[in-house]
């Protein structure tokens, strides 16, 4: 299926996939001598679930870090809504509506679930220090409005019962869900998920998949996720990028990828030369 960057189409399960929102153009990223990403290009379409897969050390996470502005590529550029994105600080990227979760959970252990989720709203709240100090008018107003937003997500991800529990006390699976909530509550235009199912048991994986689909379905959120568990990815995503040793070795719908020789080799671990 050849599509123009502005075309949109409807998936068989009735979701509308829009035009390209973000495009990676010939990204190359080096750490000193090591080349983490070598001249990779791909795009992300509005409302789709886009997966980046590959064996460990393929450079998936580095790619996600480039998208979220944490790493600055030496070559290539990131186009956001068609315009090249100037080099900006991670928090500026976040303010553009790009939220993410982390491979090894990065929650704020000292806070409750609710507070963690609330932090996701910080770009939506702008009352000044003084206003907050006296806790009147705008400050209080914002706090309440955003609390409600947060609660809706908490409700959506079914974590009401742990609302006021310090995250430090939570089991792994729940932490992952809280982190998703924190990212989701910021109403992101693109949601980046870094190995959302790493280290989960089967049920937890099923739950997480369900939530990811629900999120995409209910809020129409564009999702880009990294996963090395092939199976999960194939069921979840609309399109898949496959990376290996920092190079892109495949890009297309799950079915395309399944019959892509290079991919199969990479996963069967054919010797690289």
């Amino acid at each position, binding site marked *: 299926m050849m599509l123009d960057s502005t075309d949109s189409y409807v998936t068989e399960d009735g979701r509308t996939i829009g035009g390209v929102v973000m495009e990676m153009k010939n990204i190359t990223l080096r750490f000193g001598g090591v080349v983490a990403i070598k001249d990779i290009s791909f795009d992300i379409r509005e409302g789709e679930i886009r997966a980046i897969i590959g064996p460990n050390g393929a450079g998936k996470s580095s790619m996600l870090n480039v998208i979220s502005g944490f790493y600055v590529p030496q070559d290539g550029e990131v186009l956001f809504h068609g315009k090249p994105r100037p080099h900006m600080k991670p928090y500026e990227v976040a303010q553009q509506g790009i939220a993410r979760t982390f491979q090894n959970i990065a929650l704020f252990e000292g806070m409750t679930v609710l507070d963690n989720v609330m932090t996701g709203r910080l770009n939506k709240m702008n009352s000044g220090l003084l206003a907050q100090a006296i806790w009147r008018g705008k400050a209080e107003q914002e706090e309440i409005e955003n609390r409600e937003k947060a609660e809706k997500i*908490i*409700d959506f991800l079914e974590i009401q*019962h742990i609302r006021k529990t310090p995250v430090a006390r939570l089991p792994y699976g729940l932490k992952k869900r809280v982190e998703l909530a924190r990212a989701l509550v910021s109403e992101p235009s693109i949601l980046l998920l870094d190995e959302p199912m790493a280290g989960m048991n089967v049920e937890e994986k099923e739950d997480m998949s369900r939530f990811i689909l629900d999120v995409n379905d209910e809020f129409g959120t564009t999702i880009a996720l990294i996963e090395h568990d092939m199976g999960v990815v194939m069921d979840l995503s609309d399109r898949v990028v496959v990376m290996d040793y920092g190079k892109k070795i495949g890009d297309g719908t799950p079915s395309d990828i399944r019959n892509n020789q290079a991919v199969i080799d990479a996963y069967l671990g054919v010797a690289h030369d």
Partner: protein
Amino acid sequence: MTQTSEGVNGLTSVPALLQRNAAEFGDKAAYREKELGIWQNWTWSEAADEIDALALGLLTLGVAEGDFIAIIGRNRPYLYWAMVAVQSVGAVPVPLYSDASADEMAYVLDHCGARFVIAADQEQVDKVTDVQGGLSQFEQMIYLDPRGLRKYDHANLHQFSKVQDAGRAALSELMPELNRRREALNYDSTCVMLYTSGTTGKPKGVVLSNRNIIETSRHSSEFDSLSAGEDILAYLPMAWVGDFIFSLGQAYWTGFCVNCPESVDTMMTDLREIGPTYYFAPPRVFETQLTTVMIRMEDASPMKKRMFDYFMAHAKKVGPAILDGETVSGLDKLKYKLGDLLVYGPLKNTLGFSRVRIGYTAGEAIGPEIFDFYRSLGINLKQLYGQTEASVFITQQPDGQVRSDTVGVPSPGVELKIAENGEVFYRSEGTFVEYYKNAESTADTKDPEGWVATGDAGFIEEGTGHLRIIDRAKDVANMSDGALFAPKYVENKLKFYPNILEAVVFGAGKDRCTAFINIDLTAVGNWAERNNIAYASYQELAGHPRVLETIQEHVETVNKSVAEDPMLSGCQIHRFLVLHKQLDADDGELTRTQKVRRKIIGEKFEDLVNALYNGSPEIYTETEVTYEDGRKGEISATLEIRDAAVVPVTASKIAAE
């Protein structure tokens, strides 16, 4: 009996009550629901607006007077509004059990010919859609929670809020029609139709008129002097008459506030937060709560444990007396006060009972020590006796005359009579109109003078005038030697042991009684842990010799106490077995209200029953079970059958002569 044909100052329908409340306590809380982390609040006037909006919306959907509209879901304000909205447009609400299976629903929906269904969420919507093919009259469905339903075909599917918006939009043009229909409602128009789960056969649709509901609510509210200040927690199935009376009838009559929990699993915390002043729960709820209390206290430091035991003992001694306003020595009072500070108060608080002014339990007999436990804490827990056909109240216990072994005196406006076979009959303004589309069973239960057969056997105690129920009338039978056989009576005695969850006693027409026992997993499991007995499954635990030991002891003590009653001494249990599976409504062994279906069980486990009588020491059996997700499966087990010591009956007979 006094016939108030026109209600009290013209309040002849629930919608009328609603308008009165909106006028009288307009900005007093009417509904609360724990949602999004706080208790969302609706005043009476807000509730009235919501209900009007929905009613108008229903009009736009073309609801006609006399239509039946099924309402399916857990307790939520919206669904209560739905009931009243449905009444307002002259239709009849039919609440259904939300945990009912698709085919159970199919039957009811078909039987009442519901044109509309108001469903809570995707789960319920799916169930109905599965069966709607077979429903000739079914037309449209309204759903509350849109989650997951966005992609459904909305040809005849509407979102609750959208319907309300439509209603609000059409306010000006449809308001007259709505008012007309509301006016049209009178004391004898149908208020609600409730399906009795019925311990046998298919459910029957009990038609209750406004008179039934409002009169009963009025009487019962006055009986306990309920006020608009009460708070109740609505957590029992909306399809159950009790919930309808408490959360709708009485709530609308007195104008008190109905609080809905966030979800089933947060029920306990929500209960604690709200701290209801008026509370109903079936015995097993109190039972399990007591069990958990005891289990939790097990881990307390010895010193704290000792204090707890000490004061609980004292409470047992004087608590009930103090509650009944009897005089106790000043020292005891003081000690009780201290205990209240250190134990009772905190305990009630953690259980959420601090504010309970009146608590009721009914539906089953409650164990004396369970009952006394709560009363000794100073919780005014009482018993009532009732059924759907009576709009609940038949008898109830007045303050100060509360005992675990009676169900109290006839409720105001209720007449009682005992037939010669011991069956209890009643007559009141709460008496139901009819069984929908079922003239003959209506005739069976309700005679021309309006006397209704309860189907329970009992007698009125001399002196106190309290009613005592022995058993289901049809279960009361004779044994081969002619001795009276009252299984429930024995089963209850057994079930008073925390270890025993359910018991089914057989013996009608037989020479001696035998029993199935269901162990209580929480209690026995905990006991097993403490005696480090390893077990992999319910089945394994149930079969464990030491468990059988304990159960046997229980059975034998029960036998002793049964033997003391000359009339029923024949009902002692000679042989018993512990079932390898928990009796379950999904397998049809219990009703949705958790009552045992004796007959069905008897047939289903025929092999086991035979084994009980043919003296075999153990029996291999295979049983079909239904899992939560509806899949069916087989479990097999070899059950050990035990003989229990009995007190020689003849001896006691001689003593009697």
